[in-house]
């Protein structure tokens, strides 16, 4: 028997057979395989896709300029009347006589914008902190983590409100910054944890042993592998961002200029009409809930899918 040749042949065959995907399936691929079949994920992804699509095409769908008080003549403070649904305006108007449906449709854009920008900013800040702390350790880590501790010791909404209050002028930008600031320590903490875990891992040690440059070790080996939980968190954070933005609006810290509609802001300004014209609140609230649910569903199913314990 000549084991060598036999072995070589076998491994060759194995290598070929492995490429058809049956031999081994990567974390991402197996996650994807499970995701594709998970009803939670499909539902969530469907919602998000519809939402994003809506945001993209809403300018085409909306028949009216959301800033125009087209139905103003039907608004009366004196007898608290708000335009009823009518011909061109399937949902009627809001308390200023602006077309509700168009506002809802175009509101998706701003809502998406706020949530996305805030999360991206939060993620960016958190990434920076996390990389600083996780990759370099030592006193950088200590300082960064103390700051993060302090930020985390202020309840999130408080922090957001505090940041929001700092701005001279209220705008969507204020909301975005406020919401993003809340996310920074969360992402920072999370990433630091995963980065530290990566730092101690064998493959990073191997890269170091190989003489790979520090920067490359951090950005090519540690970061990509540490990002999994962060991506999950980011998805969940999109939901949180939408809800937080709504809460800020509710507290009067939302965007002041309402010519470009946003759901949280619509909901916030509808609170006075809750018992007389509940539909003003229900429409944006419903949209927020559904979209937040979408992001939550996707985030949760991603988390499940990426959980190595559940991986096969």
């Amino acid at each position, binding site marked *: 028997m000549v084991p060598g040749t036999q072995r070589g042949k076998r491994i060759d065959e194995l290598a070929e057979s492995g490429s058809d995907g049956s031999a081994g399936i990567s974390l991402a691929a197996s996650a994807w395989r499970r995701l594709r079949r998970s009803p939670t994920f499909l539902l969530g992804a469907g919602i998000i896709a519809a939402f994003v699509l809506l945001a993209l095409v809403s300018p085409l769908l909306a028949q009216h300029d959301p800033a125009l008080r087209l139905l103003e003549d039907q608004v009366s403070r004196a007898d608290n009347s708000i335009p009823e649904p009518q011909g061109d305006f399937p949902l009627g108007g809001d308390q200023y006589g602006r077309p509700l449906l168009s506002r809802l449709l175009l509101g998706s854009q701003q809502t998406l914008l706020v949530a996305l920008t805030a999360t991206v900013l939060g993620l960016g800040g958190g990434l920076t902190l996390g990389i600083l702390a996780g990759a370099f350790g030592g006193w950088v880590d200590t300082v960064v983590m103390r700051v993060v501790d302090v930020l985390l010791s202020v309840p999130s909404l408080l922090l957001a409100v505090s940041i929001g209050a*700092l701005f001279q002028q209220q705008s969507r930008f204020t909301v975005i910054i406020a919401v993003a600031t809340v996310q920074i320590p969360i992402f920072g903490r999370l990433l630091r944890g995963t980065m530290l875990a990566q730092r101690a891992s064998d493959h990073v040690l191997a890269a170091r042993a190989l003489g790979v440059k520090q920067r490359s070790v951090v950005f090519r080996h540690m970061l990509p592998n540490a990002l999994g939980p962060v991506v999950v968190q980011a998805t969940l954070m999109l939901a949180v961002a939408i809800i937080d933005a709504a*809460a800020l609006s*509710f507290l009067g810290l939302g965007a002041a200029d309402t010519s470009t509609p946003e759901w949280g802001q619509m909901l916030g300004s509808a609170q006075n009409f809750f018992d007389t014209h509940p539909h003003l609140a229900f429409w944006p609230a419903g949209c927020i809930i559904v979209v937040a649910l979408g992001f939550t569903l996707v985030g949760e199913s991603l988390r499940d899918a990426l959980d190595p314990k559940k991986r096969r």
Partner: protein
Amino acid sequence: MLRYTVRRLGQLVIVAVVLSILLFGWLRALPGGPVSALLGERATEESRAQLVEQLGLNQPLHVQYWKFVQRAVTGDFGVSTGVQPGTPAMEVFLQRMPATLELSVLALLLAVVVGVPLGYFAGRRQGGWLDNLSITWSLIGVAVPVFFLAFLLKYVFAIELGALPASGRQEVSIDATHATGFYVLDGMLTGEWDAAWNAFLHLLLPAAALSTIPFAVIFRITRASVLDVLEEDFVRTARSKGLGARVIRGRHVLRNAMLPVVTTIGLQTGALLSGAVLTEQVFNITGIGQALSLGFQRQDYAVLQVVILATAMVYVLVNLVVDLTYAAIDPRLRER
């Protein structure tokens, strides 16, 4: 353990100091300022300048900070200008803390009492109808803005059905004695049972609204952790010993599954306090959440300072307690 506690308390001090500096700087950076709050729309340049002078707001920042620190260590954070004008801010905090505590504790209790057992049974029967139902419920719970839910609850239960009071902490005309500031407790201590009951009824709706997110989180953590623990080798060991279901559930599964839940409960105090800002506004509960939102609206520096600082301290302390509890349950952490 002691050493660990001391260490954590040390961290508390750091948080306090850093936060006080941040807060001080931040409050000074806010637009407007106490002068506007005091003078209102009738202010003139002149009266404004006079007030700034009188309140020492024209002194250099570090002088102001030093004065602030000197007074702060004695518990003097100045006088409220907007929330309860004229009342020392510390007093405002102390008077309002019980309301928030009462509310948060009840909310947390609701969340735990419902969330943990539900989480356990859902985890036990993964994929069953109870599991699916409660997961759906918890997912939706997280997606609903707290204030919207609060409105909804109030609208349905207080206004439409009239079953529960719409707002406040207690019927004002009840004329109850308020010894501790915890109204339910007060009523029970003094034997004014109707007052206690009334206060309790007032708490129900806001607590229900406030508990949704903690419930959802606690439920999910419990469920996930039960699922994890059920897979653990020691549960298999317990089964191999032929132990009864009760012992396995209590001693082996739940005790271990509770560990992450305990931590979560600590972290949820943050969510509770955030939620309280919204819920208290909707239900007009005179707690620190309301003090905060009013403080922001009315630029009440003093109250904001105390409340944020104290809230952060409470939060850190609660988490310290939680961690100690964790260590009490988990012997692996006791030696730290």
